[in-house]
């Protein structure tokens, strides 16, 4: 096996977290190498107008997503089931290539609610220890919102996020989210203009006594130059965000916000088409010596490095940890072991609203992150005492753009084909909107990740196995949100509603898109007995290994995770720069 020249830092995966870590450590003067399994890509030519706005190649055929024929995961609902491979994209959409999922995300750019980072303590304090149901493995994250705030702020500045602050350093501001945790600064750009769905949603929820605010969107509302000097153009509401690369330099992605500057640095290198097989460690398993990858020609190559950063997508990070034998795998029977524990997801209820002919929604236009939202039922912003569940979510009226191939929603009872279907499409297309609730998925003893005993990927490595299903707590919550959605839809003036609300008895359906917001498996925390990485995202067992991504979440949250994932990467990088580089070793004594 060939061995490359050692580098200071090797970064596995080159999406958001890889790009953030790469530029922060390269700016600190380190020699940084990023390894990316996919190809390089940039706005022109890869997402050039008009070729990329092709619903068949991008939405139907998943042009930007991981090739499941090469590597996938297996899935089962319960540990006594046999897991089967996820052979077609459905419930979640792992990206691939330079930019990763940061290319095809929608742009919703939230933070985290401070109480979510210490949900176990918070629930215990407010409702008593017994309020947490048996089998729910809630735990605190070991990091506080106050510690992360400068890094949330930084990531928003980098993305040119459009929004309106509701709370700057403790003073409440009109027009923003009244439930918002204190921010150090206003958003870098003002909110995007409300499309019709969002305007109707804001009016209706306000009348119902709720508190609508413009959802923060990493879709630029104005021309913008970020702190690195990268330039973003304003969004034109073309309606091709989620599933698509942005044609307009408007949606924040590694390509639009970081890479142009990183690529100018002589101490940074990128190697694409490199699939990392494992993290190598010394004989004691205490020091990472580098990684082994397979190059485009199929040759195994060893890349030595002083610091190893796992920055691939959630699934691949967890799988790499398992394949590398770092940390003890979780055992659901004994509850021992940390790796693979607290694997969580997110629940999405989606309701289509059909309006009269005089109400124009024009659903063909929109932007991924644009919308109005309420957080009256987010996390513990509302009293759960009599509700019988823990958790919550955000309810929004977004308008993300829709077209025929992505599916035209019609009122229940409409014909599914033929001239009757066409007539219904003609009658409804311009008058259909959508509201949704996105809700937290708590952590459970029986939901976890491990290596599949049967199936292997194209490289001969066992696939990651997911064991996960919706639990009673979460489905009760979903039913609660279903009622709120129906109430809001009616108040918006919809003449009929259709859609999907998860209810008790429902199982996780891997065929229908739910969200790509899977998380957990290498939880962060203050206790090495229940977490894989410490609060700085440093492996408890191998101190020169840092693990980024939503896999470090200790349990699910209600928000879209990118804002938190980016902030955690900046937080980790800042601590590596400030402390680790001066004195390599554990940043927290176990």
């Amino acid at each position, binding site marked *: 096996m060939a061995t490359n020249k050692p580098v200071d830092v090797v970064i596995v995966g080159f999406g958001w977290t890889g790009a953030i870590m790469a530029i922060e450590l390269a700016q600190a003067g380190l020699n940084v190498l990023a390894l990316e399994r996919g190809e390089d890509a940039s706005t*022109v*030519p890869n997402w050039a107008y008009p070729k990329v706005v092709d619903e068949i190649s991008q939405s139907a055929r998943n042009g930007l997503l991981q090739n499941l024929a090469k590597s996938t995961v297996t899935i089962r609902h319960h540990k006594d089931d046999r897991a089967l491979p996820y052979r077609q994209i459905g419930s979640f959409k792992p990206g691939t290539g330079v930019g990763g999922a940061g290319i095809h995300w929608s742009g919703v750019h939230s933070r985290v609610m401070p109480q979510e980072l210490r949900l176990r303590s918070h629930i215990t304090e407010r409702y008593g220890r017994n309020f947490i149901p048996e089998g729910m493995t809630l735990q605190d994250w070991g990091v506080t919102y106050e510690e992360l705030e400068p890094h949330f702020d930084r990531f928003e500045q980098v993305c040119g996020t459009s929004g309106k602050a509701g709370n700057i350093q403790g003073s409440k501001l009109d027009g923003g989210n009244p439930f918002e945790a204190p921010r150090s600064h206003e958003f870098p750009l003002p909110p995007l203009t409300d499309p019709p769905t969002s305007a109707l949603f804001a009016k209706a929820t306000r009348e119902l006594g709720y508190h609508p605010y413009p959802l923060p969107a990493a879709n630029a509302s104005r*021309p913008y130059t970020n702190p*690195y000097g*990268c330039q973003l153009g304003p969004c*034109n509401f073309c309606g091709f965000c989620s599933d698509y690369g942005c044609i307009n*330099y408007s949606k924040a992605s590694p390509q639009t916000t970081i890479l142009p500057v990183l*690529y100018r640095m002589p101490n940074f290198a990128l190697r694409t088409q490199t699939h990392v097989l494992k993290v190598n460690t010394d004989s004691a398993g205490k020091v990472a010596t580098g990684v082994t990858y397979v190059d485009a020609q199929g040759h195994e190559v060893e890349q030595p490095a002083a610091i190893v950063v796992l920055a691939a997508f959630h699934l691949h990070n967890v799988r790499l940890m398992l394949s590398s034998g770092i940390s003890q795998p979780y055992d659901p029977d004994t509850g021992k072991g940390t790796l693979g524990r607290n694997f969580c997801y997110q629940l999405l209820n989606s309701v289509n609203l059909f309006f009269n002919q005089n109400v124009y929604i024009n659903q063909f236009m929109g932007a991924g992150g644009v919308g109005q939202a309420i957080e009256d039922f987010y996390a513990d912003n509302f009293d759960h005492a009599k509700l019988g569940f823990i958790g919550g979510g955000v309810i929004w009226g977004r308008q993300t753009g829709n077209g025929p191939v992505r599916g035209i929603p019609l009122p229940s009872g409409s014909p599914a084909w033929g001239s009757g279907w066409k007539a219904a499409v003609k009658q409804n297309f311009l008058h259909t909107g959508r509201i949704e609730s996105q809700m937290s998925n708590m952590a459970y003893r029986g939901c976890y990740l491990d290596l599949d005993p049967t199936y292997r990927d194209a490289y001969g490595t066992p696939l990651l196995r997911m064991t996960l299903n919706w639990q009673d707590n979460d489905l009760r919550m979903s039913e609660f949100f279903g009622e709120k959605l129906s109430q809001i839809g009616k108040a918006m003036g919809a003449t009929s509603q259709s859609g999907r609300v998860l209810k008790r008895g429902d199982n996780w359906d891997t065929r229908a898109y739910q969200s790509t917001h899977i998380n957990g498996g290498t939880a962060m925390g203050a206790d090495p007995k229940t977490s894989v990485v410490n609060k700085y995202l440093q492996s408890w067992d191998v101190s020169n290994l840092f693990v980024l991504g939503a896999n470090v979440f200790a349990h699910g949250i209600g928000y879209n995770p990118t804002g938190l994932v980016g902030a955690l990467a900046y937080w980790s990088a800042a601590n590596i720069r400030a402390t680790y580089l001066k004195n390599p070793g554990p940043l927290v004594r176990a």
Partner: protein
Amino acid sequence: MSRPARNPWLIAALALIVAATAVVIAVVHHIPDVAISSALAQRTPDVARGEYIAVLGDCAFCHTRAGGPSYAGGLALSSPLGTIYSSNITPERDTGIGAYTLTDFVRVMRLGVRPDGTRLYPAMPYTAYARVSDEDLQDLFGYLQSTIAPVPLASRASDIAWPLSIRWPLALWDAAFHDDSGFVSDGSQDPQWNRGAYLVQGLAHCGTCHTPRGLFFEEKDLSGRSNLYLSGGRLDATSPINLRGNSGDGLGRWSVADIATLLKSGRSEHSAVTGPMADAVRHSTQYMTDQDVAAIAIYLKSLSPAPERGRASFVASDSTAGSIMAGSERTPGGRIYLDSCAACHRLSGSGETSTFPTLAGNSSVLSSDPSSLIGVILEGARAPSTAAAPSGLAMPGFGWRYNDADIAAVATFTRSSWGNNASPVPAAKVAKIRDQLRISRPEY
């Protein structure tokens, strides 16, 4: 039988031919002398300064093949006669300039004549470098000789076919057109202006692209004596803009700061660079000091307008945006604009600050020769990534999507909207540029 009478005219003509041939032979075989200040002998070359001179002269770009070793040459440069390849100027003795003396170097830089007497094609801008000072050339020579790694790589012969490949007639071209008189400063102007003039006329060799050329490919003005200097040129399939004070296609509406910003970043609020100028910014102007960029801007801004005849005008107007919003814009060009251009360049044609260039009042759009505009629409464009504007924003090409008539229609629309008033673009012109750029036609 009488002997045929001797024809005195014939004899005279023959004598003249012999004499002329002798003169020609003398001219073409003569290795001209260059004057260098004797003070240079006492002066030590400043290598660090020489590196900056190389930046000012943009030497590395032309003398380095894409992906090839620095300064080892091999970059293809098109000329009216055929493709020429830049030469190896590393200090390698046999294939580079390692055996050159300073005098040899100055001769090649100012006169385009190699030590062996071979004449260079004026693709090497010795026509401009003739105005570079002795000290600058000495420092540049010192830098090239002492810092650059020698690369043994024979310079590639040109693709110019015989007999045009015969080089000696270039001596006649030089005799007719080359002005090696050196830079003359203008005592009526301040040192900053003179510094700008020195750079523009010499090292930065702006006129090589931006000054119109005559029948024999000679620049019509090499040193700003007339208002044709820098009044817009032609290079391959592009039309370098008029840098004089015309308010339509020139820099009349630009401020000194706008010009400086463009040279440092690749863009200003009036335009963004594309094509060969993007290379110039990428490799040269972005690295110039703020003082030098300011000096260049001041000098350019001082240039009087070129003759207005045949040039476009611009008077800002919102009538086009108004007619689009009213739904009354029904020209084919306008419809294509709405479909494929307006998302970035907006209905107002004004683009967006620091991202999408304005088309309203854009000198390149208004150029009397629309080649650059056509080329950008056909093959797209990419701004250079600079420290001041790192993103390297790009526009996709539309040549694969629209036929020549469509491209001509949308080019004409942009040249006649928002207050732009430039001549229409014929489809035949698009066809010609398309063929030059080798962009295939849409399959319909």
